[in-house]
């Protein structure tokens, strides 16, 4: 039986009207932004299912944009996020699209850059403000952002996983989950840990010569 914190029942503190269509959407936008490479000039949101049908009335559009601006689900500025994005010269577009066999509250967030290739993240808002990220630029993944999470890409060869796990254990960090997928010789690792990813750990891991892409996310616990 899943155990709950008191604040899972009385909470989150959030901007309404819907934990799945608003609070979850902010989280999706924020995590996608953290995974992306920054400095995007345009973001396209492909809305699927219930997101496509009810996004305006639930403020899902404002919530997603607030997320890519880095706001938290309790931030008062969510309702003005479209204007804030405009003032920052970020071009925003919403497109209703059938993304295939997906959870009803799913969005594909596509970041566009002037100097490099597009980058996208797909995720779903699965209820109560909880989310799951399922696709990063074609890599099929599954993580919720509830735990500290790192995403690594590296040229697959022996010994890298053990290098990473020894950095974690030397810093007394427990691994909660670790998943590795491979596409030809490029491996993608999603690793969730029980406690915060410190600057030390982030530096050590991202400085490994084999690593070609790394992102580290520490969730803010209310």
């Amino acid at each position, binding site marked *: 039986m899943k155990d709950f914190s008191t604040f899972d029942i*009385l909470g989150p503190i959030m*901007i309404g009207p819907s934990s799945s269509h608003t609070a979850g959407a902010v989280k999706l936008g924020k995590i996608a932004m953290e995974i992306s490479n920054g400095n995007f000039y345009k973001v396209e949101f492909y809305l699927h299912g219930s997101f496509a049908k009810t996004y*305006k009335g639930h403020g899902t559009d404002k919530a997603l944009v607030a997320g890519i601006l880095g706001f938290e689900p309790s931030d008062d500025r969510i309702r003005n996020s479209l204007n804030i994005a405009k003032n920052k010269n970020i071009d925003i577009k919403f497109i209703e699209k059938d993304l295939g066999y997906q959870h009803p509250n799913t969005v594909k967030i596509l970041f566009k850059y002037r100097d490099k290739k597009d980058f996208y993240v797909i995720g779903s808002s699965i209820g109560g403000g909880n989310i799951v990220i399922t696709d990063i630029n074609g890599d099929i993944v599954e993580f919720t952002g509830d735990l500290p999470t790192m995403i690594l890409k590296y040229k697959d060869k022996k010994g890298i996983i053990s290098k990473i796990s020894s950095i974690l254990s030397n810093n007394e960090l427990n691994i909660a989950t670790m998943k590795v997928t491979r596409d030809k010789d490029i491996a993608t690792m999603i690793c969730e840990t029980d406690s915060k990813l410190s600057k030390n750990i982030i530096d050590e891991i991202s400085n490994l010569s084999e690593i070609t892409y790394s992102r580290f996310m520490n969730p803010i616990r209310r």
Partner: protein
Amino acid sequence: MFNKGSELLNLCNEKNKKISEIVLLKEQSFSDLTIEEIREKMMDALDVMKESANAALNQKIVSVSGMTGGDSKKVEDYRKNNKPLSGVFINSAMAKALSTSEVNASMGRIVAAPTAGASGILPSAILSAKEKLDLSDEELVNGLFTASGIGEIVAKNATISGAEGGCQAECGVAAAMAAGALVEMSGGTPEQALDAASFALINVMGLVCDPVGGLVEYPCALRNASGVVNAFTSADLALAGVKSLVPFDEVVEAMYRVGKALPETLRETALGGLAATPTARRVTGNSPQ
């Protein structure tokens, strides 16, 4: 520490503690925060609740869709200037519940309790009780822990999602949480608190989730208003000594089975009930989306 109402009651009786105290101890074992820090965090939630429950009493707040709003102020004005049939206290509580619901629908800040759709009930219940019983904020925080303990048992053994169990799982559970809190804040026993929570669930067993246009507005706000009334009458029944023949855990189980038996059209899909009426279709066809 506890998964069932019966286990919670046993803990209360063994340790001679209130429900709120047991819930607080459990939270401490769950997180790495101190008791003081956990209480502070709950005080933050209380602050948000105070704001949301009062914001729409004196000004009209309209939803993002433009479909609803302004009802909290209407009820507040009515209870101030008239002799409401159900009394000033009940009308004041309804106005507060509507206020949080309207703040929620306008993209204002609320505490999901247990969900955003049902977020008006608990704040109104404890803040109305504060006025009536002259309670301190610390006592309200205790009430919130009691409420959360009751909500947790339902979340573990049934559901608090309208998509899974209908509105009984959202506004019904919020009323049950509030009823339990009201009993404890009024000096009732843990048994009475769970009886009150049972009554609140029993009163709306089978209540469907049929939001017009799929939006958290109508009839959600109305059911928040009736939900807080449900909480107060359920608490009064229990404090009067009325006992629930069927114990809380079995009421929760029954509520879960009823929720599962509801057709999908009546579980937050906006395909049945009020959402499927000609008026709902007309209104949402004309709405900005």
